[in-house]
């Protein structure tokens, strides 16, 4: 019987609550989370117990960490593991939640927005820059710009998607329903846009448009393929 296993995360920005519920269910089955691992969590086999889980996002300086974790410990939340500025805690059911009001719950998401905003902005900027380069250059240089654009886009799309999801979490906490609905409609708008571009490719309007279409599709499909392979791999290995 294996003593450790791995479960995939739904992505904290997209499915934090679902992840925390899953961890609780696993604890009931005797599998307790012990830390973060690439795109998921590691679990250790133990006695079955009912635990609730919470995550907080905060970049801590050396001098701050002790006090921060002491706040949680004295409220009944055991610190399990941290990965960068993400901190995972566990408590017995009935323990008061780590956030007790709407204002600070919204700020929780501001912390993670701050940590990724610049990455996303620079990736989008680099993508646009490479696309423009590809449009105005010819020959080998155009080729180089095209490759760069694809590479940047593959990072930029999931990164922007995560940032948008985090903004949506913040707006949910603030009770701004209108904005949340807009965000939920975004994937559909995006899909329509892609379909439109593909349609134009069949009309073969221009070379650069078809390149752009290929890049967009690549930017969405590549992360999805990685995701599917990861989940399949884990499922197959988990059954052995």
């Amino acid at each position, binding site marked *: 019987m294996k003593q450790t296993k791995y479960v995939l995360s739904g992505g904290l920005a997209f499915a934090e609550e679902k992840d925390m519920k899953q961890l609780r269910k696993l604890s009931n089955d005797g599998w307790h989370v012990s830390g973060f691992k690439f795109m998921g969590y590691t679990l250790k086999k133990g006695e079955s117990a009912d635990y609730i889980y919470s995550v907080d996002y905060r970049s801590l300086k050396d001098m701050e960490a002790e006090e921060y974790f002491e706040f*949680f410990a004295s*409220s009944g939340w055991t610190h399990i593991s941290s990965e960068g500025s993400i901190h995972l805690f566990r408590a017995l059911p009935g323990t008061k939640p780590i956030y*007790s009001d709407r204002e600070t*719950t919204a700020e929780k998401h501001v912390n993670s927005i701050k940590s990724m905003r610049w990455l996303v902005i620079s990736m989008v900027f680099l993508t646009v820059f490479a696309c423009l380069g590809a449009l105005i250059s010819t020959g080998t240089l155009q080729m180089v710009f095209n490759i760069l654009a694809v590479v940047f886009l593959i990072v930029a799309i999931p990164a922007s998607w995560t940032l948008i999801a985090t903004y949506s979490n913040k707006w949910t906490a603030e009770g701004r329903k209108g904005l949340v609905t807009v965000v939920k409609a975004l994937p559909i708008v995006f899909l329509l846009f892609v379909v439109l571009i593909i349609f134009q490719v069949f009309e073969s309007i221009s070379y650069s448009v078809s390149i752009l279409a290929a890049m967009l599709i690549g930017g969405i499909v590549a992360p999805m393929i990685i995701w599917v392979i990861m989940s399949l791999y884990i499922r197959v290995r988990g059954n052995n």
Partner: protein
Amino acid sequence: MKTTEQLTDSMFYIMSALTKPRHGYAIMSLIEERTDGAITIGPASMYTIIKKLLKHEWIYLYDDSDPRRKTYLLTEKGKDVLKADVSLRKVMIQLAEIGLKEAEE
């Protein structure tokens, strides 16, 4: 002194507990105790607000000899902000009480 924004409820509770030097856990349990458990503050909310109050200079770090249990205290500025907010909240209560009395007549 005029404040530009009203304090959030949680900021109000925490500032009310920092009229004497106290550390995080002491603040949380004091609030719970004095309100008979009607009001509780979660640790993450607590930490967020302590940082914010420090930034506004409404509280200051009173003693950090024990890094796990740093104590904080209201500044003069913080005391003024709290007093102004108390008066505003009194007006709020009065407004509602007059209204409710009116409804009973």
